[in-house]
């Protein structure tokens, strides 16, 4: 237990620092005592609104979404035993995007767009699983291929929808597709889900370590493989659907955060999964802070920033690891 406390403690401190930074920075600069007063529920009404109703909820939502995506990515990688898997590999973001774009085309508000994205993600999950299942059992390779092909299909539908959409709706649609936290809404359900999943998944960690060595080896060591794989699939899908619903499809976090952590911390899932929740959350929190401050008051799509931050970090770790 002791060796796990240090890396997790360091990551938790980094997350807190990122949260402080994110709340302090913005298009309006507030002095620190003003921010502390607002957090304590005192101070001017304007800064209270700014801190408590705008910045803090958005920061917490960014943290939760990043954490959910990174944990979902780590679970998918173990489920498919493929290091290239990410939360979207099974076509989930495509389904969610089609749902969201349909709602936008119909002119619905952000709540219905989110709801429609969630339904799209679930439809895609069931579609891929049903098709991959076919007759008899599914294998990781078959699940992966089905997911990739379904994702390609969704991609074509998305392009088609963008091509026929009226010009004034396009910017909103493109922002959604690149990931956007400005409509994330209340962060508490996402944070609660992240906490819940960490509590549920950490005791599964050792079984996941065994599963990473192949299903037969896992079964020989007493793991109920089929049940575990179902759990992983459903959990990863639910997490991704929740994240996509909150913030659109933000790429990169789910693929790269688990790998970064594996390069530094090794392959013990009991450590990697909670570390993913913290590091994924921190990365997206920082990216979102940059996205809304770099050219304030305008905002950049956060997915662009995650990639711009993540690519050099990842390449550095990979290079150093050799």
């Amino acid at each position, binding site marked *: 237990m002791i060796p796990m406390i240090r890396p997790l403690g360091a990551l938790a401190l980094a997350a807190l620092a990122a949260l402080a930074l994110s709340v302090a920075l913005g298009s309006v600069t507030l002095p620190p005592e003003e921010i502390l007063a607002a957090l304590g529920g005192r101070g001017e009404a304007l800064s209270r609104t700014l801190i408590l109703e705008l910045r803090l909820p958005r920061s917490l939502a960014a943290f939760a979404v990043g954490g959910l995506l990174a944990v979902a990515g780590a679970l998918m990688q173990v489920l498919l035993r493929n290091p290239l898997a990410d939360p979207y590999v099974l076509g989930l973001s495509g389904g969610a995007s089609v749902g969201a774009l349909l709602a936008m085309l119909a002119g619905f508000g952000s709540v219905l767009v989110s709801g429609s994205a969630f339904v799209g993600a679930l439809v895609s999950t069931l579609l891929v699983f049903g098709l991959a299942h076919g007759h008899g059992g599914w294998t990781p390779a078959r699940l992966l291929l089905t997911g990739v092909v379904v994702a390609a299909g969704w991609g074509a539908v998305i392009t088609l929808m963008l091509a026929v959409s009226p010009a004034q709706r396009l910017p909103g649609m493109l922002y959604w597709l690149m990931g956007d936290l400005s409509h994330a809404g209340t962060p508490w359900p996402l944070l609660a889900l992240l906490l819940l999943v960490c509590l549920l998944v950490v005791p599964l960690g050792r079984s996941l370590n065994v599963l*990473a060595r*192949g299903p037969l080896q896992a079964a*020989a060591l007493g793991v109920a493989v089929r049940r575990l794989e179902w759990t992983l699939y459903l959990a990863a899908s639910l997490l991704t659907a929740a994240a996509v619903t909150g913030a659109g499809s933000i790429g990169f976090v789910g693929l790269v955060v688990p790998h970064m952590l594996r390069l530094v911390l090794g392959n013990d899932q009991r450590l990697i999964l909670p570390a993913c929740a913290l590091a994924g959350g921190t990365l997206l929190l920082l990216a979102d802070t940059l996205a809304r401050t770099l050219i304030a008051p305008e905002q950049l799509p956060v997915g662009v920033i995650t990639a711009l931050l993540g690519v050099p970090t990842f390449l550095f770790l990979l290079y150093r690891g050799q």
Partner: protein
Amino acid sequence: MERMPTTPTPALEARDLVIDVPGRDDGRALDLCVAPGQVWGVLGPNGVGKTTLLHTLAGLRTPRRGEVRLDGRPLGALRRREVARRLGLVFQERHDGFPAAVRETALIGRHPYLSPWQLESAEDRRLAEAALERLDVAHLAERLVNTLSGGERQRLAIATVLTQAPALWLADEPTNHLDLHHQAAVMALLAEQAAEGRAVLMCLHDLNLAARWCDHLLLLYPDGEACWGPADAMLVPEALERLYGQRLATAWVDGAPVFVPAR
């Protein structure tokens, strides 16, 4: 050698067992019992179903017919976790998409004994260390498994099952990739496990290792025939020549037959 915990009366029983190899006829059903203290060797040419048989005996594949019983209870009625506490399997193939260190790999042998919230105890770690030591891979403990040679990985796989400490060992070509010394060491280890009251059943390609270390043999013929019994009765040159479709020359060393391919 450290004493490993054992369960009292381990025995594997195949009753009217026909393994399921797609596109092949049933052949002769197996009715055999592997008792504590016995070392069984399974011999047969490539593709005859040795690995499938081993996986069926471990409950990882459903047989076409018949049943497998472990300690007198049908394998299908036991939970995987209970099976894993009694039966360990050395696989021929290994996957490591996410490679772990050698020590952690050996430690997963304790998985069947630990509850989800439990971490490995000092005793578990001691068992893993002892197993690594015994298989001559303790000096590699910090290395990642994907950096090991074939023989080192084979020894690690056996060390993992030794850490698991099952009362019944199933091993799929345990001497694969091993140099001559480590082949003998691994066979001696398995024989020692049997001598301590456990049971061993392994697939082998080397007739002479089988002749030297196994007390019972199961011969699987390509036409679906099978015969089994005490090793002395099975090691008949004519039967072995038919088994492999290869003429053999026989010599005698230490009062036991040694077989080499005839020219």
